[in-house]
């Protein structure tokens, strides 16, 4: 397979992300695809810290920091402000974590997509509030330990299933919706390119593993990313012009392999792992059905 990833870098060295940070890679790949004519809005999140302290910035594009709940509104304002000056050919990008997308930012996101501004909203999904220290979000999967779902004698891990914002965006009929993985950079780059080519609202959810939050070795970020897809835990799909396409990995892995790499799942017993397997299989079947329809 020929290398399709643009060589240009828009994330400078010297940023403050943790070793093995999936979100840092996600930004790097997304900006490679979006290019220099891009303004980024970032709410409270790890990525509000990663670019570094004033007056420095690790990004080679303009970066507007926003309040936690307002990313969708901020990109709408950037878009319309630029359009008012005839700058329709500049890209507007949101880069928000799962808390800033699935929880506190959901209303502004949904509204921005509904109004139809020409923007790309990227949710970098590390499945918890990582910047504040690994608290549960609605995008945290069933079974995960977090600091607000601690595992004590009462086995109080997260008991609710993950909320898939990408599914919500499809339900809202957003012109382009995709899930993507930093473990599949060519696929991610292709999706960013498609998003860039579509005039209107776009949404991409990128699974962004987090070594300190998921408790795995920092060298394993790509491995964990690929296992998430191969085990069908995080299916890669696309929704474009009403057509749904599901990526079927050529190599599959067991869910137990994916879970066992991560300390956040180590407390799970066989029965609990089995219930995760069943839920993943059930969701996969639903997605297959969606593709056939």
């Amino acid at each position: 397979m020929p290398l399709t990833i643009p060589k240009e870098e828009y994330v400078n060295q010297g940023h403050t992300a943790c070793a093995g940070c999936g979100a840092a890679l996600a930004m790097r790949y997304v900006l490679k695809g979006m290019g220099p004519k891009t303004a980024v809005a970032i709410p409270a999140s790890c990525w509000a810290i990663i670019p570094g302290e004033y007056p420095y910035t690790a990004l080679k594009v303009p970066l507007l920091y926003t309040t936690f709940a307002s990313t969708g509104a901020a990109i709408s304002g950037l878009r319309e402000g630029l359009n008012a000056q005839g700058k329709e050919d500049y890209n507007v990008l949101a880069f928000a974590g799962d808390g800033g997308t699935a929880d506190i930012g959901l209303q502004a996101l949904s509204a921005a997509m509904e109004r139809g501004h020409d923007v790309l909203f990227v949710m970098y999904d590390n499945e918890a509030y990582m910047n504040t220290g690994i608290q549960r979000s609605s995008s945290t999967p069933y079974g995960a330990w977090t600091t607000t779902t601690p595992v004590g004698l009462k086995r109080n891990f997260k008991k609710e299933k993950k909320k898939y914002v990408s599914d919500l965006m499809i339900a809202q009929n957003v012109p382009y919706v995709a899930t993507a993985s930093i473990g599949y950079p060519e696929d991610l780059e292709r999706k960013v390119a498609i998003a860039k080519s579509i005039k209107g609202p776009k949404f991409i959810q990128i699974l962004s593993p987090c070594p300190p939050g998921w408790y795995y070795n920092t060298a394993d970020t790509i491995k964990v990313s690929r296992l998430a897809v191969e085990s069908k835990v995080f299916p890669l799909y696309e929704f474009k012009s009403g057509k749904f396409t599901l990526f079927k990995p050529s190599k599959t892995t067991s869910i137990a392999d994916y879970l066992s790499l991560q300390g956040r799942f180590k407390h799970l017993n066989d029965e609990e792992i089995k219930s995760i397997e069943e839920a993943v299989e059930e969701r996969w079947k639903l997605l297959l059905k969606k593709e056939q329809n």
Partner: protein
Amino acid sequence: MKSVQSSRRIMTGNEAVATGVKLSRVKVIAAYPITPQTTIAEKIAEMVANGELDSKFIEVESEHSAMSMITASEITGVRSYTASSSHGILYMHEALHWAAGMRLPLVMSVVNRALGPPWNIWGEQTDTFNQRDTGWLQMYCESNQEALDSIMLGYKIGENKKVLLPVMNMLDAFTLSHTSEPVEVRDLKTAADYLGDLDLDFKIDFKNPIGYGSLISPDGPYMEMKKDMRDSMYNAVGIIKNEISNFNDQFDAELPGLTENFMMEDADYALITAGAISSTAKYTVRKLRKRGQKVGLIRLYFYRPFPGEEILKAVKGLKGLGVVERNLSYGQRGPTFEDVVSSLYGRVDVPVRNYVVGLGGRDIRVTDYELMFENLIEGNNDMEWVNVGVK
């Protein structure tokens, strides 16, 4: 005094506000409906639909988003605007700090309305007095003419590079917002020449990308930036005076200074008010003057920056001063009272009283003002609440 083309029309306060927005050639407008602001948004939407106003009107899903959106559009370098009331203002509180901290000279109109619970859509100023510490300039209008003029004046002052702070323009629910008065509509060409285009030194620049609002640690210039904001707010006083004088000259207008002194020259007793309730106060002052009572009124046009020096000058020689507050603070006197007293403390010896009036749209009558003056003159009871309880 220049001769300028203008036309006099009958319009509501909300229409006057929308006309001020049109004259300011605002490029991005985001608004979420709330009574009694709604007709501002409707009128602007209509102007855009009719091609009278070349602007993008965005129907947002909340006030928090409205403020966040115009903060983002303004930072791309275009003049932006929103309007709201009451709970809408409270909901955008976080975003108000953000806009001011970003040093963006936005203008927002606020139709002052009471806060629930219990639900109440009528006039009261607690919504914006609650925003006192957000870094926004605050202007309280007494008439529909002021409501129109204050939009342009607000942009002019906020966009001054020595100020660079957002401006809140207030008008009273229904008393101004939905009541028609004759208004001089300023000439579009004169307005365009007066205001020019927005020119920000720091805006989204793809050739020179920077971070707007980056993290700053305790040793970084965070505190210096906040000091600069506060200094700019204080320094705005002189700029406001100049700009009001320019505005009056350009448009043959009659805007007051930061405050308006009404029959204060030889007054023994005076009240301080803000907003449309000042008209009834002026009527009362005139009435009492006819009876030979030496009374006067100080009307706050600007509340932030607080015109402490203007008040100090005006109250010298008074035997009693009453601060009329159409807002409420709990566990302490009203915010205007606190500001007045701290401005006068140790510099002039005038007894100051505080009156709470007109909450939730409660009428403020001539007899109420007479009662306040009577109370000031007698100076011997603890009356604080006016037109309350036994009716």
